[in-house]
């Protein structure tokens, strides 16, 4: 049977790459002794399918993994409790759900991602102005690198939503983690970061948060970037591949801090 898992990637683990994460999952599934279906051939690998790669350095509360299991009656609800201890602290399985055999892949389905970006370099007023300017434009042509080649195209259509935000905890959403605990020592110097909320399209060519900051102007530096939602647009409505239960996200944040 096919199973979809939603997991978070928080804390120091954000500095691992997408490939690193795939290896962590392979080991975790073996540790949990789940009967994962393997590919054939001389170099068999477990059949895992991840959604859109998260940039190295970004956090997330909405990563997805589809796994094919060689067993018809898996206790799907028990999977988060089984898998989370087998994963490094910072990667927590939040929800699990069964998946139809013919369900389309995450890569095909997801149309946009929602991001929270904590940035420094500019104060809130400057950032407000830059955001306003970008949103007023009908097109925004930039040159960026894709697979080693320079690509010039219009990124404006990929910016679905952009705003300088209030701290997200106040808005009732999973927000940035609390300040590092006292034992972490010296505080980060410099002015407080400003929060930017963005929804960026993933198709036909996705826009990355770092590229968005580049387009806003020079001197902006990201302090923390977090993906909070991946959206599927279907029949005029927006869906999450697996919605988060109301109590799950805060628990994940506790474990990593």
């Amino acid at each position, binding site marked *: 049977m096919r199973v979809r898992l939603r997991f978070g990637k928080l804390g*120091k683990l954000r*500095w*691992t790459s997408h490939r*690193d994460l795939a290896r962590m999952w392979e080991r975790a599934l073996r540790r949990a002794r789940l009967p994962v279906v393997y590919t054939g051939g001389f170099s068999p690998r477990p059949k895992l399918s991840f959604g859109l790669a998260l940039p*190295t350095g970004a956090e997330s509360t909405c990563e997805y993994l589809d796994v094919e299991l060689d067993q018809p009656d898996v206790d799907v609800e028990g999977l988060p409790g089984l898998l989370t201890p087998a994963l490094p602290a910072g990667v927590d399985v939040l929800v699990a759900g069964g998946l139809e055999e013919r369900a389309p892949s995450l890569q095909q389905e997801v149309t946009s991602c929602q991001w929270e970006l904590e940035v420094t370099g500019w104060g809130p007023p400057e950032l407000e102005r830059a955001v306003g300017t970008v949103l007023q434009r009908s097109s925004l042509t930039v040159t960026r690198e894709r697979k080693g080649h320079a690509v010039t195209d219009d990124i404006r259509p990929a910016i679905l939503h952009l705003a300088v935000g209030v701290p997200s905890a106040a808005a009732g959403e999973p927000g940035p983690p609390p300040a590092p605990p006292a034992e*972490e*020592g*010296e505080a*980060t110097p410099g002015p407080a970061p400003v929060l930017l909320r963005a929804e960026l399209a993933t198709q036909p060519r996705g826009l990355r948060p770092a590229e968005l900051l580049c387009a806003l102007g020079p001197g902006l530096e990201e302090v923390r970037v977090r993906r909070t939602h991946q959206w599927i647009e279907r029949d005029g409505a927006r869906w999450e591949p697996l919605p988060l239960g109301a109590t799950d996200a805060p628990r994940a944040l506790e474990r990593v801090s």
Partner: protein
Amino acid sequence: MSSLWPRIEPLLAKVQKPARYIGCEDGAQQPVHSPGTVSWLLVYPDAYEVGLPNQGLQILYEILNERADALAERAYAPWVDMEALMRQRGVPLFSVDTHRPAGAFDMLAFNLSAELVYTNVLNCIDLAGVPVRGAHRDQTHPLVVAGGHCTFNPEPLADFVDLFVIGDGEEVAGEITQVVGQWRSSPRPMPRQAVLRELAHVAGVYVPSMYEVAYDGPRIVSVAPRYPDVPERVEKRTIADLASWPYPKRQLVPLTEVVHDRLNVEIFRGCTRGCRFCQAGMITRPVRERPAEQVRRLVREGLDRTGYDEVSLTSLSSADYSGIDEVVAGIIGDPECSGQVSVSLPSLRVDAFTVGIATEIQKVRRTGLTFAPEAGTWRMRQVINKLISEEDLYGAVDGAFSQGWRRVKLYFLTGLPTETDEDTLGIAELARQCVAVGRRHTRDASVTASVGGLVPKPQTPFQWFGQVPVAEMRRRIGLLRDATRRERGVALRWHDPEATLVEGLASRGDRRVGAVIEDVWRGGGTFQEWSERFDLGLWEQAVAARGLSFDWYVHRHREREEVLPWAHVSAGLHQDFLWHDWQDALAASGVEDCRWTPCYDCGACTGYGLEHVVASPVPPAGGSQGTGQDLSRGGAVPVELLHRRPLEAGV
């Protein structure tokens, strides 16, 4: 002391592979620092992905953290991009476990596995905020320690390292902890030199500042202790029984890509094959096997805990382990291991038996097979005492290709004593023959011959041999290129002879070479073992500036009477044994493996009251390499091994 993490994290977005710096591996520890605890920072002076898997470091990490009076964290050399940012922002070298500054530890302990990392050692000491020269340090600084195979010639680093550990570190790490703990807790601060003198009394510890070297021109006249209570010779430490040290128990599982990313279980330590070029085989005697039951338990528990699907049974020659076939079959057949586990044996022996095991264990994932005949002709292999007959090699290669492998890799050395062009070209001939054998089974059989230049190592019979110069190494590689260019199926790879030259300097240098290492480091020459960073020009300049010469240290044949720079450090091997073995080499005469034959008193057992710990009294099955050798012709016929050494050719 607080964590540097808030100052480290902002740098990570700007560097390659930031996961090198975060720690968080499964098995990582977060020890609690307190005044009564001796804190060790175990530093691997190379990039994280090379250093993390190092088993020696992981063993000490666990043993020290199990002690009530010690704790240990880890650090790795930051890559050049990270180092530049750290220096720019004033961030010192840090541990990856709690991100504590390196200078806040009591001990900075380096693992020395290869000579080309020496400049990185200086760089790490400097990044820790500690003076690079021992003479400039005071009570506020950590003690700088080094262990690992390179310490069998500690002299090139003598000015930078306060104390060296010679041999196995399992026991001595605790003894050093006790001395340092007393020093740290003494009400009146003892001067640094006093604690170092105390440490010089610990068996296996070499404190270079307690010794005076006298020179006559370029020659060393003597290396003598400054004080009567300091030993004239430092004897290596050897743990008698590997079964008492079932470590690592919780092998670190990295979060990012590293070399040897799999479970490693050490099945024995030491090797008595007696390959004359092999320093590891000479300095780690005798053979100490881990009991099969313990091996099985470490494998099962390790796989369960880590989720790895590959285990490597490590040693210097794993097919020589008593009953290796049963152990391997046990792992493959263990239902607990769920049938998806592959086993790898580093350094495969060259014979059909070994290929049989390889076939068994690589059912799951079949990559290339690697053999190390090391030399191209039987005469040459007798010189280096790597007694593989051509029948053995072709039998192994035939086995490999018949079992479905399509690529075989062969390791060779050039620049060997008495090597002629015929011997060199023998490498191409062997490779060609191996392809021909492979073609019987598959049309696209390919053989890669990988050729390295010999670096004569201290504490081996070749320590007196003058290393072949770069130009001559190049000529020999050229011969091989010409000979293999038109050979379908043969690919030739070679090691940079310039790097080999510098390895030679660092391997057999004395204290005066330390200034060269310092100059190269100050000139920006870090990560010299990385070909894209290696810079021969820096080394040549420094050697010239210090009035030294490569000829003296590297290319010159040494004399029996001269005082070798490392003579006051002992691996237990009698100098007479090494010299006679060197003479046997020149006479192209091989010696047997003493594990299964009468002792020829090299000194490693008798001098320390040790014995081989080997489960099987008879040699393993296989070709001539396994059953003892008919040294007169290298045939595969087993012979009765009654001779005492040395066996002359033709006996």
